[in-house]
Every structure is written in structure tokens, then in C-alpha cells.
């Protein structure tokens, strides 16, 4: 067995299959969790019929979607229309590859892991825009345009706030960032002020990136019905929903890695404990996103832009400078 795993090809394939499956299971379970959670917040019970406590509801939903016909509108660009959901799923799974879930649990240990993660999640604009354009529907077009405008704007503060841990840890490698935190403490706490503001801004902008309330403007149901996915039916629609859940989960995971010390925690030298720490921290952020989702209303597109360009970008620029100063003053603890 150990010999088999030593083969880099086999190891790569095996680990990607395991992680991709794991992430898809998490996404399916996340739909159940969200519906249960939202139910509790709204004095409802939530799904409780399919399986114990409704746990099999995601499977029932997936089966329903699989059995549905995939309709392509007559004047839609059929190739791009079919291509977009798969492309979206590909991009999200590509992000998973670079995230270290434990000290030794990762698919790829990239030296520029953070850049890969941000680039791949930044590319998520393309499937949304493709879907919006190819649907040949005005509501979808609006959704696509809003997605692009929002994504491009929020990419800037997202990258800048992610630069703070990079400057502090002196590396783009996500594992190095976590290991640095396990020695020197979480970036969300230390250095005082800089870290916590960067964390809050990173978390906020990643919500915008993942299109979650209060930033779910591209799919604003009350005005655009479902935005980019308005013409989709069956499993392609299901893929968009899945991607959204995975994206939210990954945003939480990256925020955990960058600011909350990733897998580090008491007893994290044992790989299972480390994995549990990582999943627990990610889950707390994830649950927080849903608590926000079910209690806030959404911004308007222009308010979002004001917030981004007039507040978040200058603040994050300042934070990066402060972090650089901090590293030089304290010699970075190195």
C-alpha cells in the first residue's frame, strides 16, 4: 500500500478522487444543514420526512434533478449553455486541490498555493457570465453583468486582504502560512488590529465572491428571479447550486487557513485531530455565513460598489502597508 502511494500519479489520482467526493458530499450535506438551520431561525422544522431528521433530503433532491429534462432555450447558445455549469464545477474543484485540510492532507502542495486558490475562485466569473450570456434571457444577462461587475470589484480588496497573511508569514504557500500561525498565533488575533481587520474584510469580500447575502446581487431572486441560472433546469441547475455551496464552504476554508490557523490546535500533530480542527473552524465560519444569510437583506449594486471602492480598497491597501511595517519593526518574529 505504501509503495502504491509512493507513485506520484496514483497518489494524485487517489487523493483528488477522495477530496472531490468529500467536497461534493459536504456540499450535499450543506444543503441539508442550511435548510435545517434556516428552519430553526424561522420557527420552522425544516426537512424532516426523507430519512432520519431529513438527512436523505439532498439525495432525494439530486435524484429529482437528475430525472428532470435539461431544457435549452431555442435561441440560446447551446454549447456555452451546457458548458457553463460544468466549467463552474471544474473551477471550484480546482480550488479544493490547493487547500491543505491537514498537515499532510492535500492534493497539491503549491508554492503559490494562495495565488492558485484566488485565481481559480476569481475565474468563477466566467461560468456565471457564460451562463448569463448564453441563456439569451434579459434577466440572466443582468445577472451575468452584475456578477462580473461585482466579481471584478471585489477581487481587489480580496487579494489585498489576503496579502496581509502573506506579508506576515513571508510565503504564498498555504501550508507555510498555517505552520507560521501554529508557532506565532492566529493572524486573526496577532498582530493586533491589522490581523482582525484583514480577517473581517477578507471574510466579507469572500462572501461577495461567493455571491452570498448581503452580496447575492447576481442572483437577487426578488428582482432577477434567479439571475444567471434562470433558464437552467435539471442537473445543470443543480450543478450551479452545488457550486455555490462548495464555493461558500471553500471561502470559509481559505479564511480558516489564512487567518484562523488552519489545522493547528491542541493535539494537531495527530492528523485526524488536525483535520477535525480544520473542519470545525471552517464549519463555524460556514454556519456564520448562513446565520447572516437568513437575517440580512441585500445591498443594491451601486451601494456594493461604493462599499468596495470607497472603503474596502483603501483600508486593505493601508493594511498591507501596516503589515509590511510590522514585519520590519518586529523582524517578523523570524
Amino acid at each position, binding site marked *: 500500500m505504501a509503495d502504491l502511494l509512493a507513485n506520484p500519479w496514483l497518489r494524485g489520482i487517489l487523493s483528488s478522487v477522495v477530496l472531490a467526493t468529500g467536497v461534493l458530499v459536504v456540499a450535499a450535506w450543506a444543503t441539508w444543514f442550511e435548510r435545517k438551520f434556516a428552519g430553526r431561525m*424561522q420557527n420552522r422544522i425544516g426537512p424532516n420526512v426523507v430519512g432520519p431528521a431529513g438527512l436523505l433530503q439532498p439525495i432525494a433532491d439530486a435524484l429529482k434533478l437528475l430525472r428532470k429534462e435539461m431544457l435549452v432555450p431555442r435561441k440560446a447558445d447551446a454549447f456555452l449553455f451546457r458548458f457553463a455549469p460544468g466549467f463552474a464545477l471544474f473551477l471550484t474543484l480546482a480550488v479544493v486541490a490547493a487547500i491543505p485540510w491537514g498537515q499532510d492532507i492535500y492534493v497539491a502542495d503549491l508554492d503559490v498555493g494562495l495565488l492558485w486558490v484566488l485565481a481559480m475562485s476569481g475565474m468563477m466569473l466566467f461560468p456565471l457570465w457564460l451562463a448569463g450570456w448564453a441563456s439569451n434571457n434579459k434577466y440572466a444577462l443582468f445577472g451575468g453583468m452584475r456578477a462580473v461587475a461585482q466579481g471584478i470589484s471585489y477581487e481587489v480588496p480580496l487579494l489585498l486582504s489576503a496579502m496581509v497573511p502573506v506579508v506576515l508569514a513571508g510565503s504564498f504557500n498555504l501550508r507555510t502560512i498555517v505552520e507560521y500561525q501554529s508557532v506565532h498565533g492566529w493572524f486573526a488575533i496577532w498582530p493586533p488590529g491589522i490581523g482582525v481587520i484583514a480577517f473581517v474584510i477578507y471574510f466579507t469580500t469572500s462572501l461577495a465572491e461567493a455571491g452570498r447575502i448581503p452580496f447575492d446581487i447576481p442572483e437577487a431572486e426578488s428582482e432577477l428571479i434567479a439571475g444567471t441560472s434562470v433558464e437552467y433546469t435539471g442537473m445543470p441547475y443543480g450543478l450551479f447550486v452545488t457550486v455555490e455551496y462548495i464555493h461558500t464552504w471553500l471561502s470559509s476554508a481559505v479564511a480558516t487557513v489564512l487567518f484562523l490557523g488552519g489545522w493547528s490546535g491542541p493535539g494537531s500533530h495527530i492528523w485526524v485531530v488536525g483535520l477535525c480542527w480544520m473542519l470545525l473552524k471552517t464549519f463555524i465560519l460556514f454556519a456564520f455565513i448562513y446565520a447572516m444569510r437568513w437575517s440580512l437583506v441585500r445591498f443594491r449594486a451601486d451601494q456594493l460598489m461604493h462599499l468596495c471602492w470607497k472603503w474596502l480598497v483603501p483600508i486593505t491597501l493601508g493594511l498591507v502597508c501596516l503589515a509590511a511595517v510590522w514585519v520590519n519593526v518586529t523582524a517578523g518574529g523570524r
Partner: protein
Amino acid sequence: MTFSCLQPPPLPDPHIDLDAYEAGADLMVLNLGPQHPSTHGVFRIKLVLDGEIIVKAVSYPGYLHRGVEKLFEKLTYAQVTPIVDKNDYLSPMINEQAINMVFEAGLGIEVPRRARWMRTIIAELQRIASHLVAIGTFVLDVGGAIGGGASVFMYTFRERELILDIFEELTGARFHYNTHQVGGQRHDVPLGWDVKIRAAMDSIEKSMDLYDTLTSKNGIFRGRSLGVGVLGRDLALQLGLNGPVGRASGIDLDLRRDAPYHLYGELDVQVPVLTEGDCLARFRMRALEVRESIRLIRILLEDVPEGPIAALKPSKGPTAVKLKDGQWYVGVESPRGELGHYLIASAGANKGMSPYRLKIRPPSLHLVSLVPWLLPGNSLSDAIAILGSLDPVMGEVDR
């Protein structure tokens, strides 16, 4: 002959000439509705957009037209009540009261005090129920069906359920009650009804504070509704608006206070008036009115009059009510404004058993008439918020 003082000042022009609009602009026509989830029923608006900014809005109501007014001319007076339940389907009780009040005016009969007491309480309960829906759906429009809006919507429906329970105990129905008849009530107050109402009022008052925290004290919500879709007092007057939307624009008119009916003359109805005229003011106005209704109901419950609940003997069938020639108009304060019924009765129409003509003045029609004026200049997102803040009921607009 013209009276210059009666001439309205010129209105803003909603019928903008699109050919004269900015030469290089790439205008796009977006059809909002009639199946759009945020149009509160089947209502179609044709929007001409420049980017996301609305240049022109044309409204097309009529998808829910049922020919109610024509139907009235075939039905006897006793058969009309269940039909009007379906007009303003968020406040059926007030529809029933309004139409029976115009028949009572025609007959010239005095409704017994106990029945008037019941009608007052029912009207206020219905007002709360209707405003709860308006509050919930407005936050739903601003916050999204899958988001914070849905939470407030669920909460308001939970409270509305309490009122529906109270009505169910009284009438046996939850939505289309048919409990009012010419000259009084059909069902008497059930035992222990006041205890139930008091408990419901306490519960609703408590949750009104929760809604405040989730909405008008929330920064994002304020940002979405403050200063959006400002309706000036002049325009509101010229379009004949009253009710919560008019009062949010500074029109100090409430028929409960200014032309009292039922027992309102004995009550000191406090009419809240706001002058901002934006979406937030309209939203806050409804919340204030709910609190005022709760106060009125508590006062009413202190003194329960005894006596009969109907002036006429129990209806012997559809022929029981006959009207002579005449014309009557009765307006009541519905949750959306003045709900008026104009009755022309004729002894010749179906032997005096049916109205010759019964015209409804639905407040929602006047709300919908605001669309071409309020929407242009706002973004698509704001258009939905404005439409939600007006809270029209299409069943009443199209009739």
C-alpha cells in the same frame, strides 16, 4: 369656467418621449411580470432601461379581471358579500363590511351596537393581519426569498396566523369568511374570544419590536429603503392617494377619525403621519398603524356591549333585502386607503333585489397608478422595493 385654485399644478411627465432620450443610449425593454415573483400577483410592467436605470415604466394591470362589478348586477344583495371577499384578498373582512355598509345606508337601518363593536374589532384585527403581510412582503422584496427577507416574512405570517385563528373561531373559515350581512353579523362572539385576542395582541406587540431590529434598525435595510421612491405630497393628492401610503407622504387623512363609522367615533384614533414619503416611511407607517390598532383593540375589549348582533331577522333567503331607487356612497378605511362602494339601486333591477350598478373605488388601483411616476430614475432593484412598499392587491385593482 375654470377655477384657477382648483387647477392642479403640472405633474411630472411619466410619458417620456424615448426618441428624444439621449442619442447614444442603448435602451433595453424588460418585461416585468405578469409572472414575476415580486409583482404581488399578476401585474405586468414594461420597463425601458438604460443600463439598470429605469427610463420609462408602463403598467398593464388587468390579468386578474373577473368582472366582479358586472357580476354584482346579477346577484342579489345577500349574495354579494362572499364575492367581495375575493377583491382585496388580504383584508376580506373590511371588504364585507364596506359593501354591507352601503346596503345598510340604502335601507336606512341602524346596526345594533354589539354588531358595530364586533365590526370595529374585526376591522382592526384585519388591518393588523393585512399590514403584517405588507411588512413581510416588503422585506421579502428587499431581502430576497432566500435570505433575511424570508425570515421576516415567516415571522409576520406566524403572527398573522394568530389573527386567522381568531377569525376561524368566529366564522369557521380562514380566508373567505362571509360573516357580515346586511344589518349586522352572522356569527356571534364565541366564548373566550377576548382572552384569545388579548394574548394575540401581546404576542404581536412583542414581535413588532423584533421586526424593528431586523428591519428599520438594520443599516443595510435602511440603505435600501431610505430616500428611495420618494412620493411628494402634491403628487399623492393629485393621484387621489390616501391610506398608509398617503399618510407616509404627509396627507393627514384617515376615515376612521375624519368620517367615523362603526364605533370609531367613540374611540380616540391617533393617526400617525410621516412626511418623508419614501419606502422606509411607508414601511414604518404600517408598523405604526399596527401598534395603533393593537391599542384600539385593547380599549374595545374593555367594554363589551350586550344585545342583538343583527338588525334584521335572520335572512330568509336571497330575496330578503330589497332596495328602492337611490344612490349611496360609503367609504371605509381599508389597510390600503379609502375603499369606497358607490351603489345605484333601482326598484326595476331584478325586482329591486340586485344593484343596478355597484362601482368599487379600490385603493390599490390608485397605488398602482403611481408606477409610471415613481419608477423612472430608479434602478431595477429599487423598482421592486418601491412596488413592495406600495403593497397593492391585484384582486382589487383588476376586480
